[in-house]
């Protein structure tokens, strides 16, 4: 399997990349880790005329808390995230997901920005971003924009990014006392895309009442999906087993899976129900620690 010919351009700065993209037009594609795009090119499902390599741009690989935000540079690899002390200690949901994403060698190259910007509902990070209510920072010909995650995913492999926009940073509200998250996916074997996955983030106040909650679903809809009805049910409530049971049921009803090699629609709905409940419990446990 060999990709079709293309022109390669290495960008050393975000500005240069955007300029290149603007000049080359829609036949140009950005490549960061390349682990989503290059396989598609090798299978010749994608045949871009130009590849703009953004992986060498300096300064886009970092993980830091800044003000009330956790900020992750878009070129941060999944491995860097996996071994990052801050994420390990304060954002265990990231470890849950990364451990289940592809394999260690792919994670050495694959970036968080690429995982999100690809716009694939089968990728794991979109569900986390939905659950944690991330903002996506992008730079483009018109300058910098900050896109709330709920406005980011538009369709099958389609996002709010214009062709020349570069996703530069992910901003996530900082972990605070009483918050916790968890992610799990059922996969056919390790490293597989999710049969179904669920990310949950909860924030409890001192009396244990749920102030904020986010639930994102992986690979059970064409577009990465937020479980709005489930979140509404929990917000402002003390989360009980009965409520968790109801949210699991809602998740199984509201998700939009299709039957495929990973299983029937009914099976996937059932899996979503189970994982939603389990991740709610796990997130609550972490929030209460």
């Amino acid at each position, binding site marked *: *399997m*060999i*990709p*079709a*010919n*293309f*022109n*390669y351009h*290495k960008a050393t700065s975000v500005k240069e990349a955007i300029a290149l993209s603007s000049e080359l037009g829609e036949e140009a594609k950005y490549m960061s880790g*390349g*682990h989503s795009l*290059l*396989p598609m090119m*090798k*299978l010749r499902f994608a045949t871009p005329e130009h*590849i703009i*390599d953004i*992986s*060498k741009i300096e300064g886009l690989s970092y993980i830091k808390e800044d003000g009330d935000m956790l900020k992750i540079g878009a070129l941060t690899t999944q*491995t860097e995230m996996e*071994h990052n002390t801050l994420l390990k200690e304060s954002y265990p949901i990231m470890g849950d997901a990364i*451990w289940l994403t*592809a*394999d*260690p*060698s*792919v994670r*050495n*190259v694959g970036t968080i920005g690429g995982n999100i910007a690809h716009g694939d509902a089968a990728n794991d990070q979109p569900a986390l971003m939905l659950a944690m209510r991330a903002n996506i920072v992008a730079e483009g010909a018109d300058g910098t924009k900050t896109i709330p995650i709920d406005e980011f995913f538009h369709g099958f492999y389609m996002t709010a990014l214009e062709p020349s926009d570069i996703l530069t940073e992910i901003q996530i509200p900082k972990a605070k006392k009483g918050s916790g998250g968890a992610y799990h996916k059922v996969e056919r074997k*390790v*490293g597989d895309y999710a049969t179904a996955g669920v990310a949950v983030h909860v924030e409890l106040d001192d009396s244990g009442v749920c102030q904020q909650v986010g639930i994102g679903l992986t690979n059970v809809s064409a577009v990465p999906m937020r479980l709005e009805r489930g979140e509404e049910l929990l917000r402002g409530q003390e989360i009980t087993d009965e409520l968790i049971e109801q949210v699991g049921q809602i998740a199984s009803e509201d998700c939009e899976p299709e039957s495929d090699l990973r299983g029937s629609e009914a099976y996937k709905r059932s899996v979503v129900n189970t994982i939603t409940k389990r991740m709610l419990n796990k997130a609550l446990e972490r929030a209460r620690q």
Partner: protein
Amino acid sequence: MAKHEVTMTINGQSVTAEVDSRLLLVHFIRENLDMTGTHIGCDTSNCGACTILLDGKSVKACTYLTVRADGAEITTIEGLAPEGTNHPLQQAFHDQHGLHCGFCTPGMIMRSVDLLKNNPNPTEEEIRWGISGNLCRCTGYNNIVKSVQQAAKEMAKEKEATV
């Protein structure tokens, strides 16, 4: 299509070449440099037979463009240990019968180098997950796990001796 000049260090030697944009790193290593220890098994970055170290990290060379490796430091199985000697992992795979047909072995070993660098004393479960991007069809993995365990012990001893 324009060619691109790349310079990288492979197994300690500097290499400069003119390559096509689309040349995959695994083909550059195998075809242009005639180092055939790095193998191709699946084309879709599932099997890991093409695993090399790029700037110290395990990378699947079938899913990496040669042009992007410009300036990189690459180690392949041929350069893991000086000629005629064994890296502790090579020795362990031999001692523990961690290979049969040998096709996955270079990739498996290169991956294990990175694994042990990040986790010098892994549990069996951590080893199994750590090599989960490398398929072996022959060994059933039991002895690969034992090989990595042996190497971890040996490397810890070596480290202790040098401290």
